[in-house]
């Protein structure tokens, strides 16, 4: 069972792997459960249970479509999510993550067990869904080339993304004619532009990349903008229906055949 447990500092929860009923008391569910758990499903050998927020459920839908996860070997527990809180860097208060404000569905589109919470939580979740439909679009006017200059080329965005499962990543520097392994300032926009194209019509807005980024680059704002274009052009939204096939116009990850 992959879920969340209390973290080591106030305001943090972290992934935890429970393999016995006694251990299940470690599991928690709160607004600090930011990590994207579907990442850990890839390559899992046994039958696995997983706690999936709305965005995590969308990631699982994509992974099933991509045949990286077998639907029959996972049990999805889907709680109604109120969004993930992050410490604001400017004040010391906690704020709702930007990508949560844009979320299209606070509960996973696929689930074996859905938990709607007590009535207060359910109300909050419904209110939240209404607010979201009122449409908080992705931020406009971000100076992306400036944002990219803060990038540390740590590749945490790629490592934390549940949908980045290419056996050999194109952007890790092995293809040195494309981007270097080192942090060459001229290549920082190239790295991010290529990544954004790889995420086009695939990103489900879970925000794992933003949570991992040490430079706090608002990556999901960029990827969701491109997704808006893909939806307009091809009428396709990722993460909703397991039975749709992604349009052939969109990029596909490269996985070694075993």
């Amino acid at each position: 069972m992959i879920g969340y447990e209390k973290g080591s500092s106030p305001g943090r929860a972290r992934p935890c792997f429970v393999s016995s009923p006694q251990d299940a008391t470690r599991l928690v569910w709160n607004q600090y459960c930011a990590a994207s758990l579907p990442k850990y499903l890839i390559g899992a050998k046994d039958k696995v249970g997983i706690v999936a927020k709305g965005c995590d459920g969308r990631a699982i839908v994509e992974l099933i479509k991509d045949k990286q996860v077998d639907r029959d070997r996972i049990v999805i527990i889907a709680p109604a999510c109120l969004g993930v809180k992050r410490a604001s860097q400017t004040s010391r208060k906690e704020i709702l993550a930007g990508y949560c404000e844009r979320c299209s569905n606070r509960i996973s589109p696929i689930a074996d067990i859905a938990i709607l919470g007590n009535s207060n939580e359910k109300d909050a979740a419904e209110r939240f869904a209404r607010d979201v439909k009122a449409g908080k679009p992705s931020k406009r006017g971000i100076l992306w080339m400036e944002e990219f200059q803060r990038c540390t080329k740590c590749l945490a965005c790629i490592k934390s993304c549940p949908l980045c499962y290419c056996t050999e990543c194109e952007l890790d520097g092995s293809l040195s004619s494309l981007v270097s392994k080192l942090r060459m300032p001229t290549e920082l926009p190239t790295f991010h532009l290529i990544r954004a194209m790889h995420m086009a019509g695939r990103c489900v807005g879970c925000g794992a990349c933003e949570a991992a980024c040490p430079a706090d680059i608002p990556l999901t704002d960029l990827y969701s903008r491109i997704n808006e274009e893909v939806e307009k052009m091809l009428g396709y939204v990722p993460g909703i229906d397991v039975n749709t096939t992604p349009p052939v116009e969109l990029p596909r990850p490269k996985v070694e055949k075993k």
Partner: protein
Amino acid sequence: MTPFCITESSLKHLVDQLAKEQTVMAPVKEGSGFSFKRIANGEGLCLDFTNSTVPPKSVLLPQLEELFTYEVKSGKVRTAGSTGGDTVTLIGVRPCDSSAFSVLDRVMGGEYIDPYYSRNRERTLVLGVSCSRPEPTCFCNVFGTGPVEGSSDDISLTRVDSGYVTRPKTKKGREFIEKHTEYFREATQKELELFELESSRVNKSMEAKLKSEGLPERMSKAFDDPYWQELSRRCIECGVCSFICPTCYCFDVVEEVNGNQGRRSRGWDTCQSCKFSRMAGGLDPRPTKPDRLKHRFYHKLQYMPMTFGAISCVGCGRCVSRCPSNVDIREVIAKWQ
């Protein structure tokens, strides 16, 4: 040398003057965090921060550093080494990061001197500033690397009401104060008392549950513990820990070739990358994630003390606050306590 005091405005004027003659680097707000960057004048100096996201080791060991360029002409190879740079006054280094410089000095110095690091180290003056507001993730007190003074400070500054109580710690520091004596005055008795009170307050504000005594020996007993498998399950091998760690120094070397010209550079690398220890022929001494994560902690807490006589964690807490999976070195230290 007795302690001095420099007022806030004198410090700004000093920076104004320095910035005209040399490079002054200080913490600058960038995005939602802080970054050590060159400042143009005293107005750019802001010491109201906890710590930078990327540590100031980037001044001594840049994330990207040119080693040399070369050109092949008529069968001959000509190389040109990088020329180093300006004198640097580095202001606003927290005690943990300053103490980290001492760790890096041991690795980059000693029997085999890294010429690029040495050159950067030589030309940099470290003005350390005491912490006043440690984060819950800070634990420098465990290793004695803070929170008031760092071991590589050339000059240590501690804020009191009327300014910064200034203690020169090295010959370089003393010479600096002598050269800019008009900005400093002797600290008054009251200021010294305030300094003592402030040091005491900051020290007491930090929890002291962890013990670093005997840590290398404790680690040697734990090498085959199944704990490492368990801990590494949630690690995503992103390597952020290495990039923001003030004592990490591993680097990779790349070459850019364009016709008959080339440039060789080095830059930061991370042992958490699955390719880090791959060798020609396919051998990999750390093929799995538990191997690599375990290595990080053993390097910091056992191999470094054994080889260089210094524990390589300074308790800055950056990895604790930024690890996406909340892998916490404090839990590792506490595990076999």
